[in-house]
């Protein structure tokens, strides 16, 4: 009797979440996959089944290839860099430094600044000649850089902004975890004559593993989600050198009105995320989630 009543409670409690997840996660995932096998309906031409035609178009699409390559570089740089910086920041603010409150706040500010707003400020930093970076470099005779207008540097300029934006957010998680490490553990290590670097490697980092995994999930998400600054700054240019997958999906869907092709691109993004999730969860110790 009790069991079935518990089940009823469970079902009722889960109902809103299930309804919402079905409506905005599971159904659209399935529908997107189905859409990718149809043509885009336009005006008086309804959608028709086209098999793998959209996928063939995609494989032949140089912009798609660029978007994938760029997004891989973007993710491969942003994930380790923002996490490494976040850890360094957390260790710094956790140490006894002067004006700790201010420093901590400074690291965290990018998190509260809307990307769309800071994009314009960074635009000034990157402006050739009179922009802040070039003004500084100009003193060393290295001015005249068109950071965003040169395909060789544009993606890196975007990456710097993303790292700047994310590191402080991740730092908070590391900081919280650091402060929960029992001081006795570190004291013990110190008694045995371990240097700071040894403590870090043998004690601190292993204890931070769950946090690292948690942050890495977030970092992956940001690496594929954060395209606000692309919309505001480069719109994927020059010559698609800053084209990222989600931005391309947005462009195809809401600029070109080719919803079927956008669905096809979305399927690829879904597949990438699923693959990463499998690797992450597979690699991770299950205990972390069943604590």
């Amino acid at each position: 009797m009790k069991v079935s009543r518990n089940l009823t409670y469970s079902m009722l409690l889960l109902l809103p979440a299930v309804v919402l997840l079905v409506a905005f996660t599971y159904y659209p995932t399935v529908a997107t996959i189905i859409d990718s096998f149809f043509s885009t309906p336009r005006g008086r031409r309804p959608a028709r089944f086209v098999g793998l035609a959209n996928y063939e178009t995609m494989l032949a699409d140089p912009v798609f290839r660029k978007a994938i390559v760029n997004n891989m570089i973007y993710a491969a740089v942003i994930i380790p860099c923002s996490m490494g910086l976040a850890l360094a920041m957390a260790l710094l603010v956790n140490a006894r430094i002067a004006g700790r409150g201010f420093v901590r706040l400074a690291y965290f500010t990018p998190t509260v600044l809307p990307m769309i707003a800071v994009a314009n400020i960074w635009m000034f930093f990157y402006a050739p000649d009179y922009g802040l970076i070039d003004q500084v470099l100009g003193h060393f005779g290295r001015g005249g850089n068109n950071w965003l207008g040169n395909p060789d540097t544009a993606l890196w300029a975007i990456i710097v902004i993303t790292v700047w934006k994310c590191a402080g957010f991740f730092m908070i998680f590391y900081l919280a975890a650091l402060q929960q490490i029992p001081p006795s553990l570190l004291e013990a290590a110190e008694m045995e004559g371990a240097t700071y670097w040894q403590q870090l490697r043998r004690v601190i980092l292993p204890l931070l593993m769950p946090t690292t995994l948690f942050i890495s999930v977030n970092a992956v998400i940001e690496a594929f989600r954060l395209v606000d600054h692309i919309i505001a700054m480069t719109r994927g240019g020059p010559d698609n050198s800053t084209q990222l997958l989600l931005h391309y999906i947005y462009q195809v869907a809401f600029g070109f009105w080719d919803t079927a092709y956008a669905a096809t691109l979305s399927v690829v993004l879904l597949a990438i995320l699923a693959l990463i999730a499998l690797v992450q969860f597979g690699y991770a110790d299950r205990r972390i989630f069943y604590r």
Partner: protein
Amino acid sequence: MSVDRRSATTRLAINVVAWALALLWVLPLLYAVWTAIHPPLYAARFDLFAPLTLDNFVRVWNAAPFDRYFLNTIGLVVFVVIAQFVVCTMAAYAFAVYPFRGSEWLFMLFLIQLMVMPEVLLVRNYSTIASLGVMDTMLAIALPYLASAFGIFLFRQAFKSVPKELDEAARMEGAGPIQVLLRVYVPLARPTYLAYGLVMVAYHWNNFLWPLIVTNSVSTRPITVGLGIFSTVEQGIDWPTITAATLVSIGPLLVAFLLFQRQFVQSFMRSGIR
């Protein structure tokens, strides 16, 4: 952590690095303040004695309905966070306290949402919103985010760490499931709520792409979209105006964070998010 053993030079180095990084990190904000309080002429010239002005703020305030955008954002954020609290608390409570056969699997299924964010499915979600007839409403912006796997995951963790005895004691006194939830679980999970709430406030205050797609009018547009529309004009970028607009739009959040940063960080530590 014992810093004592480290030499003075090491300590100095740590300080220098920490401060250099901090300055680098607030530079965009400093630039925004500088440009916003000076006439346009000084947007790219750093002259300590440049005249100060509030004209940029006045112009921004008059040029776009930022007051209305503010209200929209505040309404949106409050609604999203409260609705997330309700939806996620209920689901997490079920997972933590009323597990059933297959509930672990269902939980894993829920976690998919962690990776498959609403943004990835924006094309389909857009047509769902359109067919629900809620396009250009606050609900349209909020709906895809309400069942947050992140929230369910955190709350479930927090609920699981609540001692069973407390739960049983409350039930002995005749409390129903909802009363137990509200009297025992939720109060003990307060730091988690605070931490999650703050992260979500920051997230939704800053969210841009999805609101950009589903909003259409001054009465629903959040401040980020208002700002985005405001700054992408044919004329090119007008930094004094844009930085002033930026400061206007982040002001409240920044002040709130300044005031609550201690509680914020502490709630993270206590919430067991790690």
